[in-house]
């Protein structure tokens, strides 16, 4: 089951959903609008799953905007810390952004039950597009799971910076 606007709001107040900072006006009928955080990283041109370090250092997105080019993957972050130990979080873009041809995530929309952090976004664009820090760019939904709850034990929630692949060789030792 997907949580409605009123239910997301209630569960934020109950402490069962973490969204910080939280503004009720960013609630939609069945999701919450998140903002783009200030940091952005480029991937190295020849990134592969088998490299330890594939991204360049994070830079600040200027207030005047940053032009993204097609054919590249950029790692960005949500402005908000987002997470829940009770509901499963899914992350997507707003349709207003999708209509401009900007991907916010690449095929991996599923969050884990566990602690909150600033989520890493995978940006890629079909046509060149300008992005601005703090712009309302995407949405998260919250889903009630069935079954005993198991918390995320992987590496990513420790990071709120845009974070590249931390599982070289797909997490399997070479």
């Amino acid at each position, binding site marked *: 089951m997907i949580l409605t606007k009123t239910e997301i709001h209630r569960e934020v107040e109950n402490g069962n959903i973490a969204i910080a900072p939280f503004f009720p006006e960013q609630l939609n009928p069945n999701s919450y609008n998140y903002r783009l955080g200030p940091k952005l990283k480029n991937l190295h041109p020849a990134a592969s799953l088998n490299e330890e370090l594939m991204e360049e250092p994070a830079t600040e997105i200027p207030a005047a905007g940053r032009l993204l080019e097609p054919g590249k993957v950029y790692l960005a972050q949500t402005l908000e810390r987002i997470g829940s130990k009770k509901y499963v979080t899914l992350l997507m873009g*707003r349709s207003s952004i999708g209509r401009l041809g900007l991907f916010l995530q690449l095929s991996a929309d599923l969050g884990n039950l566990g602690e909150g952090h600033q989520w890493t976004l995978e940006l890629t664009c079909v046509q060149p*597009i*300008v992005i601005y820090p703090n*712009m309302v760019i995407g949405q998260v939904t919250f889903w009630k799971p069935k079954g005993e709850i198991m918390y995320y034990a992987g590496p990513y929630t420790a990071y709120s910076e845009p974070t590249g692949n931390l599982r070289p060789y797909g997490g399997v030792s070479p």
Partner: protein
Amino acid sequence: MILTGPEIFREWTSGRIKIDPFVPSQINPNSYNFRLGSRVAYYKNRILDPKVRQEILYVDIPAEGLILEPHSIYLGYTEETMGSDSYVPIIRGRSSTARIGLFVHITADLIDIGSYNQWTLQLHAIQPVRVYPGMLIGQVTFWCVQGEVTLYQGKYQGSKGPMASEIYRDFSEESAT
């Protein structure tokens, strides 16, 4: 919880799901196949700035098909007008569409509860792809909610045909406050 095909049919019959036109043979085990409407739009500008209202141009998809090029984003729409006050719709491409490298939406699969439209599709082809008017291009699923329902009253309500992004309004509202 996701609705099964027979439940989608039952809830369409009861009026809690709107799909118009509705063709029972387009029901799948847990989704409904929607069709591509007969025109697409594309942006006049190559570089897209969300702060600026972007002009779009329309092109009709002829019966013999229209080739979508990889370097452009195209806005299509569902032939069906769809929505629900009781369930949350989520859209996606059919796997048959994905297998030829065509995105039907770009990272925005979620429809607000209470939103009734011909939904705008964000078409993006990895390789050139030919599309046809009325082709079965994607699927909609319906999901049960937890909590009291607030219906959508946003800027895309009631839209027909491909609708350009209205995100520039965010920025004008920001500067106005």
